């Protein structure tokens, strides 16, 4: 049985080595290959543009030409599986990590993870963050037992490289300057209202937030964070949690069933 038109057309779109599909013709004597190439180009160039829009700092770091080549390889190897293009490129960072020509830029994949997290935060569900008054109003005796629902836009990206600094310098948020001390930065991405914010988590902050997200009460989450990092400072982390709009809700333990 002959291959259906749509199937042969689809197969030839992302594979420039394949002959153009049977039955694709031109009205004149022209070679239809040039005409079919319009579709090939629309598909590939269009998806490369989607990646450029989502990963502008990665593009800034490697340059337009390098980015274009890298993105084309990604598009052909891993085309989208959904018409929701806001999620396209969630695995671009993993691809970059294994992309041999970019190997010397050891931090590039983590910068891509940060940019992917920023788009997820942009599209995340809306919620109104709690302010400091809500926290101050809690019964001091109950504070260690409370659980904290984190804002739905919360994203954390751990890295052994100073990715927030690199991101900020290349996105125009901070002046270019030599990175004095090459150290790891754990990025916190949060969109409390309409603007996506990118910050560096304080020491132990990642373990603390993961513990809270996992449902541990505040006191136990602080223990976990301290075990992870001896420099963990609870009051500094709490100030960040409230000040950055990370808390969506405080769940006060039921006095009948203390945890």
């Amino acid at each position, binding site marked *: 049985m002959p291959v259906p038109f749509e199937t042969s057309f689809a197969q030839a779109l992302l594979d420039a080595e394949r002959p153009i599909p049977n039955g694709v013709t031109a009205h*004149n004597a022209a070679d239809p290959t040039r005409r079919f190439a319009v*579709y090939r180009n629309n598909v590939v160039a269009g998806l490369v543009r989607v990646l450029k829009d989502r990963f502008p700092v990665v593009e800034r770091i490697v340059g337009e030409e390098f980015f274009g080549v890298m993105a084309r390889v990604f598009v052909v190897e891993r085309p989208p599986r959904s*018409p929701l293009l806001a999620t396209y490129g969630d695995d671009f960072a993993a691809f970059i990590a294994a992309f041999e020509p970019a190997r010397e830029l050891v931090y590039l994949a983590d910068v891509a993870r940060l940019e992917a997290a920023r788009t997820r935060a942009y599209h995340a569900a809306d919620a109104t963050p709690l302010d400091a008054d809500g926290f101050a109003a809690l019964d001091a005796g109950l504070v260690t037992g409370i659980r904290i629902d984190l804002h739905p836009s919360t994203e954390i990206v751990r890295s052994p490289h100073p990715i927030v600094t690199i991101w900020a310098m290349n996105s125009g948020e901070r002046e270019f300057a030599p990175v004095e001390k090459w150290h790891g930065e754990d990025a916190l991405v949060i969109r409390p209202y309409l603007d996506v914010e990118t910050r560096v988590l304080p020491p132990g902050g990642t373990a603390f937030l993961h513990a809270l997200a996992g449902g541990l009460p505040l006191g136990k989450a602080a223990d976990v964070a301290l075990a992870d990092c001896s420099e963990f400072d609870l009051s500094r982390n709490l100030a960040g949690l409230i000040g950055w709009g990370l808390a969506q809700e405080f769940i006060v333990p039921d006095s009948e069933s203390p945890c």
Partner: protein
Amino acid sequence: MSIVANLPARAGVGFKPVHFRDILAAAQPIGFFEVHAENYMGAGGPPHAQLGALRERYALSVHGVGLSIGSMQPLDREHLARLKKLCDRYRPESFSEHLAWSSHGEVYFNDLLPLPYTRQTLARVAEHIDETQTALGRMMLLENPSTYVRIAESTIPEVEFLAEISERTGCRMLLDINNVFVSAKNHGTTPLSYLDSFPLDRVREIHLGGHDEEADDTGAPLLIDTHGSPIANEVWTLYAQVIARTGPIATLIEWDNDVPDWPTLRAEASAAQAILADASRASAA
């Protein structure tokens, strides 16, 4: 009960977030805004905040680009459910999609790809439109495509194909005049002969956009539907001819790439509005 498409018969503009502040800063002489459905399927954030603000102030057209109605594969039910959620939330005056496919197998190609026009594909597309209209509980508009190749197995002229789909399913037409022009040039035919046979009484919206001009390897024109430049003079002329025949119809300026500043876009809409106003005066006279 099925919701009927009822955009105001005025000039509208494809919404770009970069224009949001300008648009909200004053009342705009714009009949409606159109958005691509797939850009508003996230959970929250600025896209919904902006769309909500626009919706409060203007008529709205939701234009899908990812349903793949022209595919021989079954429709993506999950995607249909997302479209329903979006339409239920914003209650647009119109929902439209394309006579094209964009997904095959597991892959979404992010482009409007051509299908052969045969009895078999006609039946399939009609089923997909029935399914979409039933799922959304509303009448949809179907847009004529711009195409770059001919397909040997096609046996039905495009206009006939569209007219029969519309008759069978009750859907109405979104007539993209730039697409008519681009396809006619690419296939060595004339846009007027296409428009002469088009079911103009079924048209509920018109699209106008810019195209690029390239050439094939014999030097024949190869026009690309890029939506990245002003509308061509020939397309304006065709538009005026159509509107003179039909009377005013909701008309969208589409400018998706190399997006200009808001005043430039608004001026394109004003040019369309002037042609619509001429037609109103002529029909009143």
